[in-house]
């Protein structure tokens, strides 16, 4: 899909994912509020780090070697997390974040753990190659989120467009909507939140009893 003068879109997706991660790291050292020039300088520096060769391969290329299919939701959530600091705009609110994490945890668990949960007889991953079915399911899910005004639906639309264009190395629909890092992050966030909520409730109960 790329003209010859452009790098492949799958490589660009990896480059963008790692650049956004580095941007978050660089942003931690910026004063608040930061000038436009400083923000641009940090963004350029993060892009420069990506091109640093390590044993003949640039940093982004090392990441591409092990993580060639970053999902569109992880790119979107990284943009949403960087945007307040770098663009001064809050894109995602609480409900959008929750939708992002719950979707990642549920779909990721189904895709990655299916041989362990259902046995090899039920092949959930295989249905990602029934691409017209998968695209239809993805469209309906996106509409459901958007009808509720949830901005996570926009990330699913982006995944749908990328899938239709074959923008990633994978041809399986699930790889456009979830990836192992997004799934692990989702599980960690939900478990952590659950633990905090449980602990807080327990503390509240204890203090009531003491009172």
């Amino acid at each position, binding site marked *: 899909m790329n003209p010859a003068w452009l790098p492949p879109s799958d490589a660009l997706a990896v480059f963008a994912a790692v650049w956004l991660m580095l941007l978050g790291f660089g942003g931690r050292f910026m004063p608040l509020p930061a000038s436009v020039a400083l923000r641009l300088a940090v963004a350029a520096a993060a892009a420069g780090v990506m091109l640093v060769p390590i044993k003949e391969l640039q940093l982004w290329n090392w990441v591409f070697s092990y993580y060639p299919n970053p999902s569109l939701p992880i790119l979107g959530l990284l943009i949403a997390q960087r945007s307040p600091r770098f663009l001064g705009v809050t894109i995602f609110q609480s409900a959008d974040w929750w939708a992002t994490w719950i979707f990642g945890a549920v779909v990721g668990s189904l895709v990655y753990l299916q041989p362990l949960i259902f046995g090899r007889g039920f092949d959930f991953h295989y249905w990602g190659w029934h691409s017209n079915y998968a695209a239809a399911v993805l469209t309906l899910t996106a509409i459901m989120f958007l009808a509720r005004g*949830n901005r996570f639906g926009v990330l699913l639309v982006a995944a749908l467009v990328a899938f239709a264009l074959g923008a990633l190395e994978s041809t399986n629909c699930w790889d456009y909507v979830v990836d192992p890092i997004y799934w692990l992050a989702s599980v960690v966030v939900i478990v952590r939140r659950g633990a905090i909520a449980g602990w807080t409730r327990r503390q509240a109960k204890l203090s009531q009893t003491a009172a």
Partner: protein
Amino acid sequence: MIAPRTELSVTPVLLDQSARPTARSRPSRLSPVRRLAWIAVTCIAGGAAVKYSAPVSVNPPLALEPASAPWARAPQSVGEFGKPRFERGWVSPEAQLAHVHCSMVSALPSGDLLALWYGGSREGAADVAVFTSRMTAGTKTWGPPVKVLDRASVEGELGRRIKKIGNTVIFPDRTGRLWMVYASVSLGGWSGCALNIKSSPDAGLTWGPSRRLTLNAFFNMSTLVRNKPIYAADGRIGLPVYHEMATKFPQILWFQPGPDGTVEDYKVRNLGASKGLIQPVLVALGGDQVLMMLRDTSSQRALRTSLSTDNGWTWPDPTPISLPNPDAPVDALRLADGRILLAYNHASSGRESLGLSLSSDEGRTWKKHSVVERETEKEFSYPQLTQGPGGMIHLTYTWKRERIGHIAFNLAWLDQYRELAGGALPP
């Protein structure tokens, strides 16, 4: 009660909460107009995706190409009913490399035989390369090895870090184009393998670029290959592959070759639910039936088989048969008369002897035929069978991990051979 948070943090890299004071807040929900606009965009994108991303085929093959398809058939008749012939030779030269292993042999439409193996300082070393050698039709000697892949060339073709390369298979398609599928590892051991595909328009003289196949959801790791494919009448090729990480099980990669060596469509299906079974061998039996034979990595150490009655699309759970298996790969070939020839290690442990067995009832019962290699504490393994010109059957195998051995015999030898006195090997 916990106050709702506007952002969630996972790691310091993702954490950006300190930016909130400067952020210009937006409404937490999309406005009704924007909702409708986005839903319209979604419908358009979804419609386009459904229309343009439809797979070539998601249905079981209606039929398989018979074993006698013109593009796969080697010239028959000569030698089949004549004098028994049994010849030994070598595919790889003496002392080519410290370690050679995992051969494959394919009969090409031209009548040539092309063998392939990998070698290097040791299995899994960074210096391992894949070699081919050709036996031109009408000759009895293998040509000099030609290096077709090594770690550096694969890195260049795939544009990523490659730690090592391994198991490789070659096979022709119905147009005569030769395909190569090979395993490469970027991280970890063999269970971290991913598969790559490339093709040759001139029967292995030159090769096109490699393409990475994404076959596994989790970082695309742990799909390996060992044996030759089956061919659907609609042009699809079903290549047996297997998964090793966390749990071992067989799979089949269905792909549709496109024009000029492209892959139009591919997908991988799990085969059965049994654990610990790898390196499936598929034998098309005709009448929509396909026999699968499997290496057993479990403690049971018995060769397993399963029979598909829908051209290899669905499979019942494999069951053990009377032959032992020392956690070693096997290969099988359907002969012109319908019998199935099996090359395997007849032992429940060790790979010290390599033998042949025959089945006349589509794999239900087996009769031990002969032992072709045997030496205490040595390894003879990874057999590959093909039928070449003149009906000759060719067996290549790993010989003590030092060379790739080659044995050629005909049906007359198979039918007339009687074990020599004292259990001596055929000459």
